[in-house]
C-alpha cells in the first residue's frame, strides 16, 4: 500500500537513503541522520504522514553505528504506513550520540524523545526539555542499553536489616 510512498521518497532524496526494504506491505527506509529533518518535513508536508505513531530506538551493541532511532509514520488520509530508521554512531565511553529532534514537525515526539533519552541516552538536539521521563533523576546510566548490567539496581531507599 505504501510502496508507492517509499518509491517517491527514494526519487525525492536519492542521496539521503542508505537502504530500503519492503515486506508484506511493510515499508522501511534507512536514511542518514543529517538529512532527517528535511526528509521528515517533506514526508509530512508532501506525502501527508501527519501521525507519528511511535518513536523508539534499538541498541546493536558491537555494531557500528551502534544505535538506530526508529520512527513509525502513518497518514490519516491515505492510511499508508512508513518506517524510517536513522543509524546513530556512538563511540565507546564517548559522548552521548545525538540526532535532530522532530518536535517541530510532530509535537507528539516530545515525551517519546524524552523516553529514548532516558532509556538509551540518545540526545535530541533542539528538544526544549530533555529530561528523564520514566526513571528518577538520581538514576545513573541508561537501562535499556545492552551494556547496562542486568542485576544492577539503584535504590532510592532501603531498610537497614543490620540494625535488627
Amino acid at each position, binding site marked *: 500500500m505504501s510502496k508507492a510512498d517509499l518509491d517517491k521518497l527514494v526519487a525525492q532524496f536519492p542521496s539521503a537513503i542508505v537502504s530500503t526494504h519492503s515486506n508484506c506491505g511493510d515499508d522501511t527506509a534507512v536514511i542518514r541522520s543529517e538529512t532527517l529533518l528535511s526528509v521528515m518535513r517533506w514526508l509530512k508536508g508532501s506525502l501527508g504522514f501527519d501521525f507519528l505513531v511511535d518513536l523508539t530506538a534499538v541498541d546493536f551493541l558491537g555494531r557500528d553505528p551502534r544505535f538506530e532511532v526508529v520512527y513509525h509514520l502513518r497518514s490519516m488520509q491515505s492510511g499508508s504506513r512508513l518506517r524510517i530508521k536513522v543509524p546513530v554512531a556512538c563511540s565507546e565511553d564517548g559522548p552521548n550520540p545525538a540526532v535532530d529532534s522532530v518536535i517541530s514537525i510532530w509535537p507528539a515526539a516530545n515525551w517519546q524523545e524524552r523516553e529514548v533519552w532516558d532509556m538509551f541516552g540518545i540526545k535530541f538536539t533542539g528538544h526544549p526539555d530533555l529530561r528523564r521521563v*520514566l*526513571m*528518577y*533523576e*538520581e538514576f545513573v546510566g541508561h*537501562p535499556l542499553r545492552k551494556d*547496562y548490567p*542486568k*542485576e*544492577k*539496581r*539503584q*535504590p*532510592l*531507599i*532501603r*531498610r*537497614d536489616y543490620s*540494625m*535488627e
Partner: protein
Amino acid sequence: MAENYTSTLESALNWARKYSLFSYPFVTACCGMEYMATAASKYDIARFGAEFPRFSPRQADLLFVVGTITEKQAPALHRIWVQMAEPKYVVAFGVCASTGGFYQNYNTVPGCDQIVPVDVYIPGCPPRPEQVLDGLILLQKKIQEGTTWVQRRDRGEKHGGEWVTPRPRQPGHLPIIS
C-alpha cells in the same frame, strides 16, 4: 499478680485490634482485582472485621501492599507506612510485593520488605481471595500472639527501624522522613 493483670489486658487489647483492622490498600498492579474480589460480597472480608478500606494512611493500621513496587515508588510507600496509625501491620499481597515476582530488572524492588517491615506474605500471581483471607487470619493470629513487627519493636525485641538512602536526594524531590 500485676504481671498477670497486664498480660490479660494486653490479650484483650490484641483481641480488639485483630477484629477491627482498618486497611489501606496500596494498589499498584493487577493484584488489585483480587483485592477487590476479596472485599466484595462473595468472599466478604467484612466477616473478619477488616471491611473498611481507608484511603488515608492516617486512618489505617493495616497496609496492604498490592502489586509491584518500583524503585521510584519506594520512597512514597515508605512515607505512607510512616504516616499510618500505630500499632500498624503490613501484608505483602502477591509475589511481586513479596519478592519482586518475575521481575528481575533495574526498576523493580525485590520485595516490599526492602522498604517496610512485612508481617504476612501472601504468595500467588495473583493470589486467590481464599489465600488472602488465609493471610488475614494468619495476621490476626500474629496480632493476638503479639508477634507482629511493630508489637515486637514495642517490646524492645526489634530495633526501631533504620532506613538508609543509598543515593543522595536531589532538590525538587520529596524528602525522606525516617
